[in-house]
């Protein structure tokens, strides 16, 4: 077998059974790997209605035929389970070196079932797999856990995916950290680990694998590298990374602050951008196999946080814990970045949750009595850090915030839910979504709740000429961020690319999602060279659609319908208050038109938002259609 390692590893923590299974040909040929196979396995093996924190939930680690080749951006590991934050499909992928190591050990996917009765960790050393006691690392932060396990196993090159106290305390947005500063952040995959009493997965792989046509593989990979380096975003991205979005959104009049209450003309964040951030950065770092090297290491040189050093600073955390909380002290946010990485919680969701609490405090929905004396005033960094720590430890008011803003708002009542924005419990990124209609549609239909990486049409940020939009997406207005027209084809196009990147375990910054001319056709060429199986453009499109439909069916089984495909809170209710987009809104009528269009393009029922039998059968998902029919979801 080429490309794939050929083995699925299944570990049951309840009865400590360890099984190696042959990787079924039909599964890999129909879903390729990564998110694709993970989602199919989740649909097949995790029944609807189960408790995400119970032993019936399963955790899937996935790689692809490209993972571990090192010649394309192939360092990612995709982790899937039912999400304890949203109650629907949860998944998240992280860079670093863990995915390749798992693949070299001979496993395409690792499936973790049941729950251990006391803290354990997994030690996968090629063919040898052990469940080991983790009592001595329970309660430790992530870097300390790495250090102790490296000493214990006697090799600092072993790759470890671990949770911190956040996951142990079942904070619903706990992350799973691989290497230093690479997080599977969104949707609480670390929480699922914590619920299973699983502290870490340590892996060493020395078996390696072969690709079908090494010369062709090398030639295509070299062409990809050339395209990536010639791409319009490469120059700044290789130096600044995602921090560049801070500056870009602000200059476009799309930045938001104070829990997205204010927008555009925000004087106090004029100086909080890529440039001011870069003075703390000491060097560039890459994930495995990546020529983009968008990550950094940093060290704060001056001020109250002098000496703070760490890894993995991204736009999401810098915005969510920055302007969203009214905070523009970048050194303080770097400190918070370290807390999130060490204690293992999602930097994005934790910041957005705190920002909601700040606004509830501002509006008197909660008071100092609720927060046990902590003044949640905009820009009060000490209060922000104190409340973050209480959230991680689930103490006092932090216990409520540890459930995420949507669940916390429901518990608080008093109209608190009016001040949060989300889709299906997943947060909306810190950019004014009202100015980007296609991005709003993508958030509304995303299979893991609000999320830019599920298919935001990047072309809306740099609108193209109407003729070109017509040629590519069939409508002159498709790329116009203010228009509701032609968004069905547009969002489906970008969704397919994002889905396929996740199935191939490659980084979206090396794809057409991020202006690099690498589309489904090019991805098919490379996967063909890797596996020897013919994946042409048409087949790649079909696979992307198959993955999206299996995920949608999973959501449908959990009760999701058309009414859930929208944005909740401020984004739908208030107009943009100032700046170049002043008065711009997301209108329900426009959203409805976009949904009608999108459902038509992807073949979902207009009234219910459920995939039709015809769509499912065309993609070879008869069994899924039969199950949905037996539940009365489709005729």
């Amino acid at each position, binding site marked *: 077998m080429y490309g794939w390692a050929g083995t699925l590893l299944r570990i049951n923590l309840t009865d400590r059974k360890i099984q190696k299974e042959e990787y079924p040909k039909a599964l890999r040929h129909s879903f390729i790997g990564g998110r694709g196979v993970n989602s199919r396995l989740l649909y097949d093996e995790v029944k609807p209605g189960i408790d995400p924190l119970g032993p019936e939930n399963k955790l899937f680690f996935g790689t692809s035929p490209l993972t571990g080749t*090192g010649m394309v951006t192939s360092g990612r590991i995709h982790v899937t389970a039912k999400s304890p934050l949203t109650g629907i499909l949860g998944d998240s992928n992280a860079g670093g070196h863990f995915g390749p190591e798992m693949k*070299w050990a001979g496993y395409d996917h690792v499936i973790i079932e049941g729950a251990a009765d006391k803290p354990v960790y997994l030690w996968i050393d090629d063919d040898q797999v052990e469940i080991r006691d983790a009592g001595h690392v329970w309660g430790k932060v992530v870097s300390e856990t790495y250090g102790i396990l490296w000493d214990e196993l006697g090799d600092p090159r072993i790759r470890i995916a671990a949770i911190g106290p956040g996951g142990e305390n079942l904070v619903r947005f706990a992350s799973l950290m691989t290497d230093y500063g690479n997080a599977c952040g969104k949707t609480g995959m670390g929480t699922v680990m914590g619920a299973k009493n699983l502290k870490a997965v340590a892996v060493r792989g020395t078996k390696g694998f072969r690709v079908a046509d090494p010369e062709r593989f090398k030639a295509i990979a070299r062409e990809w590298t050339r395209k990536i380096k010639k791409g319009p975003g490469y120059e700044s991205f290789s130096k600044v990374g995602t921090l560049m979005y801070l500056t870009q959104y602000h200059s476009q009049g799309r930045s938001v602050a104070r829990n997205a209450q204010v927008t555009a003309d925000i004087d106090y964040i004029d100086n909080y951008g890529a440039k001011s951030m870069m003075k703390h950065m000491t060097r560039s770092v890459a994930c495995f196999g990546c*020529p983009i090297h968008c990550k950094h290491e940093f060290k704060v040189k001056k001020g109250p946080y002098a000496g703070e050093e760490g890894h993995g600073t991204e736009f999401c955390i810098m915005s969510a814990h920055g302007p969203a909380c009214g905070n523009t002290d970048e050194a303080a946010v770097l400190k918070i970045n370290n807390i999130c990485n060490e204690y293992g919680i999602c930097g994005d969701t934790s910041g957005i949750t705190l920002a909601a609490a700040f606004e509830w405090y501002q509006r008197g929905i909660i008071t100092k009595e609720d927060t046990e004396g902590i003044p949640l005033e905009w820009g009060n960094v000490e209060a922000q850090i104190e409340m973050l720590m209480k959230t991680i430890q689930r103490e006092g008011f932090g216990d409520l915030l540890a459930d995420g803003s949507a669940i916390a708002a429901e518990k608080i009542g008093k109209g608190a839910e009016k001040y949060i924005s989300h889709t299906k419990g997943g947060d909306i990124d810190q950019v004014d979504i009202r100015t980007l209609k296609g991005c709003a549609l993508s958030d509304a239909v995303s299979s893991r709740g609000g999320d830019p990486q599920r298919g935001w049409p990047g072309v809306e940020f740099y609108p193209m000429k109407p003729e070109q939009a017509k040629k590519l997406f069939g409508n002159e207005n498709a790329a116009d961020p203010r228009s509701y027209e032609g968004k069905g084809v547009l969002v489906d196009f970008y969704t397919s690319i994002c889905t396929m990147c996740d199935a191939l375990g490659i980084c979206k910054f090396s794809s057409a999602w991020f202006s690099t001319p690498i589309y489904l056709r090019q991805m098919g060429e490379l996967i063909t060279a890797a596996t020897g199986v013919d994946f042409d453009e048409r087949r790649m499109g079909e696979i992307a659609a198959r993955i999206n439909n299996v995920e949608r069916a999973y959501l449908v089984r959990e009760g999701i319908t058309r009414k859930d495909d929208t944005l909740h809170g401020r984004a739908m209710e208030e107009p943009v208050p100032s700046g170049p987009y002043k008065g711009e809104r997301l209108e329900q009528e426009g959203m409805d038109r976009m949904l009608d269009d999108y459902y038509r393009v992807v073949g979902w029922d207009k009234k219910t938002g459920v995939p039709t039998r015809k769509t499912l059968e065309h993609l070879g998902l008869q069994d899924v259609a039969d199950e949905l029919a037996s539940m009365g979801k489709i005729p």
Partner: protein
Amino acid sequence: MPKKLLSKPALCVNCRTCEMACSLEKSGMFNPVKARIWIQKNKKGLDAPMICRHCLVPPCEKACPVEGEKPIWRDKKTGIVHVSTKNCIGCYECVSACPFGAMRIDPHTGQVAKCDLCDGDPECAKWCPTGAIQYVDTKAIGTVSSIDKV
């Protein structure tokens, strides 16, 4: 004097593409233990490509206790230091002797392996995306330090 491989830790971002390029060239596989180059944190905390220097007086060759036809030798014409499995007794004296950590042990066969500059066209330097590994003419090495600042 022919060309030499130079390692520039200040430019290395730890992507390890060099390891995979080497592994594929030498073993036909993607497997880091088959690579003759590897990335290791140096004392300054930088990621450093550990490469064979093809020393003029190779410590590995000197440490080899085999008498007669040695499994390690330096080709005077090309400047390449070679290792062969023929006559190798597997004592790993060469591994201990190398001050640069450039001698590798294949954990599956137990045999030592090292860089042979791909016979004058090294894959690692071709794939390195940042210039942390450069294959340069020895006559130009005096000017290479300026590349750090690019």
